[in-house]
């Protein structure tokens, strides 16, 4: 209780100093219309929240991230487990993973729009694409990091091979899976904004692009602020998940 209060206090002071620094830089150092102070940005954010545009754009972006991230993880985890468990699967799939992971999702935006259109399809494809390889690689790494003694102990306690997989190899890999997903979440934010900047009909990236056309600097900053907060929250949720499951022994973060 006392420790979590201290942690919360630390965050609050950290955020307060961030906003204070921002205010000082904007009002006293630069004093430019192109760099609005936090007060003006927050006022603009309230205005945009009241007329609904902020919620709508944030919801659209989050939904894309959420869906793509979910499907990407659902595809990546079993593939990673299979690659980590069976050498033959590793050899078969490594050309895919090792080839494709060096083609960044942002390079695929144009292709995605041509294939899946300007709507949700292309965005979700890109988020899946940006998620899946990181999750595969860290899951596979997690499987190979399970110490042989854990497997041997289970076998000599009477576990079948299937049980070893379900009750030993998989739970031992979970921290690695969560870490991979956490990294993928960061990439998803990068990818979705890039995709929405290039071609979209809604979303936080689209909001930034529209604001640019009319020189609405305040609105750009609202989008940036919201992105930062959403990313921070998503990452905290993940870290909390890792801690809740794996914090007791070997947090890989």
């Amino acid at each position: 209780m006392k420790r979590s209060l201290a942690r919360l206090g630390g965050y609050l002071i950290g955020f307060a100093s961030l906003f204070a620094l921002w205010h000082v830089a904007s009002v006293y150092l630069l004093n430019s219309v192109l760099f609005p102070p936090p007060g003006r940005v927050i006022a603009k954010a309230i205005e945009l929240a009241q007329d609904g545009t902020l919620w709508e754009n944030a919801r659209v972006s989050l939904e894309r991230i959420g869906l793509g991230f979910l499907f990407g993880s659902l595809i990546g985890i079993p593939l990673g487990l299979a690659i980590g468990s069976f050498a033959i699967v590793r050899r078969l799939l490594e050309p895919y993973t090792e080839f494709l992971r060096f083609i960044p999702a942002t390079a695929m935006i144009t292709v995605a729009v041509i294939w899946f259109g300007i709507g949700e399809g292309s965005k979700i494809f890109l988020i899946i694409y940006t998620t899946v390889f990181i999750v595969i690689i860290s899951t596979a790494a997690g499987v190979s990091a399970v110490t042989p003694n854990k497997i041997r102990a289970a076998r000599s306690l009477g576990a079948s091979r299937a049980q070893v997989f379900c009750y030993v190899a998989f739970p031992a890999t979970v921290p690695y899976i969560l870490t991979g997903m956490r990294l993928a979440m960061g990439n998803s934010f990068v990818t979705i904004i890039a995709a929405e900047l290039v071609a979209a009909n809604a979303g936080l990236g689209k909001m930034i692009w529209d604001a640019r056309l009319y020189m609405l600097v305040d609105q750009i900053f609202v989008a940036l602020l919201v992105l930062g907060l959403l990313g921070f929250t998503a990452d905290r949720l993940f870290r909390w998940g890792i801690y809740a499951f794996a914090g007791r022994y070997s947090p890989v973060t």
Partner: protein
Amino acid sequence: MSLPVARSVVLALVRLSGVSKTFRSLQGSDYVAVRDFALNIEAGEFFCLLGTSGCGKTTVLNMIAGFELATSGSVEIAGRPIRSPGADRGVVFQSDDSLYPWLSALGNVEFGLRMRGLPRAERLDRAHRYLDLVGLSGQGHKHPAELSGGMKQRIQIARVLANEPQILLMDEPFAALDAHTRAAMQRELMKIWRTTGKTVLFITHDIEEAVILATRIGIMHAGPAARLKGIIDVTLSDSERERTDDRFIAVYRRVHAMIRDEVAIAMQRTQ
């Protein structure tokens, strides 16, 4: 005529005869760990296998555990050949990385019972009983990371005992503990052995540990291609199993005399 044979079959719980184990290195060269190895472990005894590092004593244990298969020869438990790991042979490892850190101490202890499909009530009952036996009453809710090295080894022992195996295979389980904890764990293990009457195969390179614990000590030649050099019976009473006791020292000297040359050979070979 058949009586002596029948008797020895009944008495020897684990029997190794003519066992060789060859490892192939990545470069393709062969390493013979043990050659023509023979050993009988009788039901109820506390057998210490003593040897220098690299003599293949862990290889012997791994073959009995079923983790590794003999290249030739026969490895049997209760007359049946060993082909894979099984719940009849409980293994206590030197390293606590064999524990499941995502499970509580209780979860670790009941793991084998859960895998084997015992009903929950019986599992918990047995797990608590063995946690009590190893001196971890009321600590079942803690996770391994919250426990000291000695306590983690106690969980390992309880986890194996809860499964009620025919033999305990212990691979230098106290080697990573500090001297005081190690001495305490040795006393605990003696107590547990006396309470449960389990057969134990205990691997160690520590003469003193072997003399404190064993009813018989098997001394191995230095590797490679190691065999058993000799077996020394330890008939000390509990009160005599003290480092300062005269009879303890006498046994220690006998064991030391037998292993001394092997240590010298092992040192030469590793240099």
